[in-house]
């Protein structure tokens, strides 16, 4: 009986180890190696393998402008998402304004859509034939019906798409703060804003840093919003180049 228990435990350990190795190699090591290999074995225009072909690709023709557009979007997105996300969380959690629940729910609904569905939703309202644009065009017949496109439209759409994730993590971080520290600071004479900047925000910095990195990468790799709203960033361009081969 004891022997059987040992065997079962041993088999479970072996199974666990094999599963771990499969996940580690299959999902982490091999994809990374494959990407690195592809980068350094890409053929150049002359058809020979060139370790710097990928780097040259980003500097060829109009590509730098796409790279720049992506960087611009990523940096601006970091600013807008942080401003909106922090404001939303502070209003709903820290200052606990009236209607906080509705505001929170409104922002969180974006979590259930895919990127394409969200952008399509915005287009339904603001696109050339969108409800709001049509209504505005009736009032101002000479307005540009394609006003909701390009960088501003992408930034607007992505800001609200990313804010829900941002607020979700930040909300948990702010709820983790010992509220007695806020009360202690108030008791020591600090104004609510002094408490916010001296006590609350420093505690949130590690979370904010992670969210900033996450938002930056999201902006850099944006796909659906630039594609649907007509903004020349690098990711849609890579797909276009790849499909055009």
């Amino acid at each position, binding site marked *: 009986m004891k022997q059987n228990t040992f065997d079962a435990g041993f088999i479970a350990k072996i199974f666990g180890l094999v599963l771990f190795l499969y996940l580690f190699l299959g999902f982490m090591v091999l994809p990374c190696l494959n990407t690195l290999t592809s980068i350094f074995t890409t053929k150049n225009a002359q058809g020979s393998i060139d370790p710097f072909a990928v780097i040259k690709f980003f500097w060829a023709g109009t590509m730098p402008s796409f790279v720049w557009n992506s960087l611009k979007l990523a940096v601006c997105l970091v600013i807008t998402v942080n401003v909106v996300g922090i404001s939303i969380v502070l209003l709903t959690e820290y200052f606990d304004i009236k209607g906080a629940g509705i505001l929170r729910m409104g922002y969180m609904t974006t979590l259930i859509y895919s990127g394409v569905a969200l952008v399509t939703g915005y287009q339904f309202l603001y696109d050339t034939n969108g409800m709001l644009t049509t209504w505005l065009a009736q009032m101002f017949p000479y307005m540009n019906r394609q006003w909701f496109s390009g960088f501003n439209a992408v930034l607007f759409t992505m800001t609200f798409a990313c804010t829900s994730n941002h607020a979700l993590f930040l909300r948990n971080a702010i709820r983790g703060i010992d509220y*007695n520290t806020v009360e202690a600071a108030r008791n*020591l004479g600090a104004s609510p804003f002094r408490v916010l900047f001296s006590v609350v925000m420093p505690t949130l910095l590690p979370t904010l840093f992670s969210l900033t990195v996450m938002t930056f990468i999201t902006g850099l790799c944006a796909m659906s919003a630039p594609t649907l709203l007509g903004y020349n960033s690098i990711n849609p361009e890579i797909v276009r180049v790849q499909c055009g081969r």
Partner: protein
Amino acid sequence: MIRLNNIFVKFGDFEALRDINVHVKEGQFYTFLGPSGCGKTTTLRTITGFIEPSAGSVFMAGNDITHVPIEKRNIGIVFQSYALFPTMTVYDNIAFGLKIKKLNKQEIDKKVRTIAAKVDLSDEQLEKAVSQLSGGQQQRVAIARALVTEPAIICMDEPLSNLDAKLRVQLRNELKKMQREFGITTIYVTHDQEEALTLSDCISVFNHGVIEQTGTPNDIYNHSQTEFVANFIGDINKLEGQITSSLGLDDKQNHFIRLERIRVGDNGGFEGVIDSQEYYGLYIKYYINTGGQVLKVIEKNDGVNIYRPGDKVNVIINPQDIMSYAKG
């Protein structure tokens, strides 16, 4: 120093405090004692300004401070969780209130180091992050932070409850010493009756949002005014059956006696048999079956007269030591 006049606090339909009247004198160590949810912390938060009462007034040094904002009350607070700012060093934690008051750097430094020395924090510890300190050291930082701004009174909300038993006793003594040294009026909240009895000059015992009794530790312990206070403070025997009738006690009342007030001897009183004993070193607790009921008795451990389970003894009760309360 602090006076609460007919304080009522309501949270929606729930009445958290009902007609609370407290008078804390200058330099006094005043304790709010009671079980969880009895209203002691709510009373403290009403004094500090975190809760505004539904009715009644809070007076400090003769001035009505009921509607004065928290930061203008000049009351120091030590929280149960210590509430130290985790991103600041020990020094910055203590200096926080002084920086808010816009004192110059030299003055802040002098005050921080002076108070740190008084609460036994070294210069080396002042430079550490608060997370690097032990529970006892964090508590000292919390006290130093509360005292450095020289508040008129200091409020402590169960400051020892996060510590282990041994450290709690050690810090309890230090706390009392510190309070005497600073001479500061202290309001202390605890559910630990031993802590309340050892530290306080005056105690208010809370139950279900009302004060059951206010008095010195001796009043509260030996002259408990209500059955709740008698039961909540220390261990007690409820006298029943044959004992009450033999002593001629009123059967419309409940009768109680403290464990140490019962004597165990060889003659007189009621006959009983030792059921079991608990050995505490300094004293021994006996469970004595007197036929009708089991009485708990504490006897000083003299190392000679130690009874064993099964020993026949006599239980002597002095009627003057019995505390009686109306039934219902």
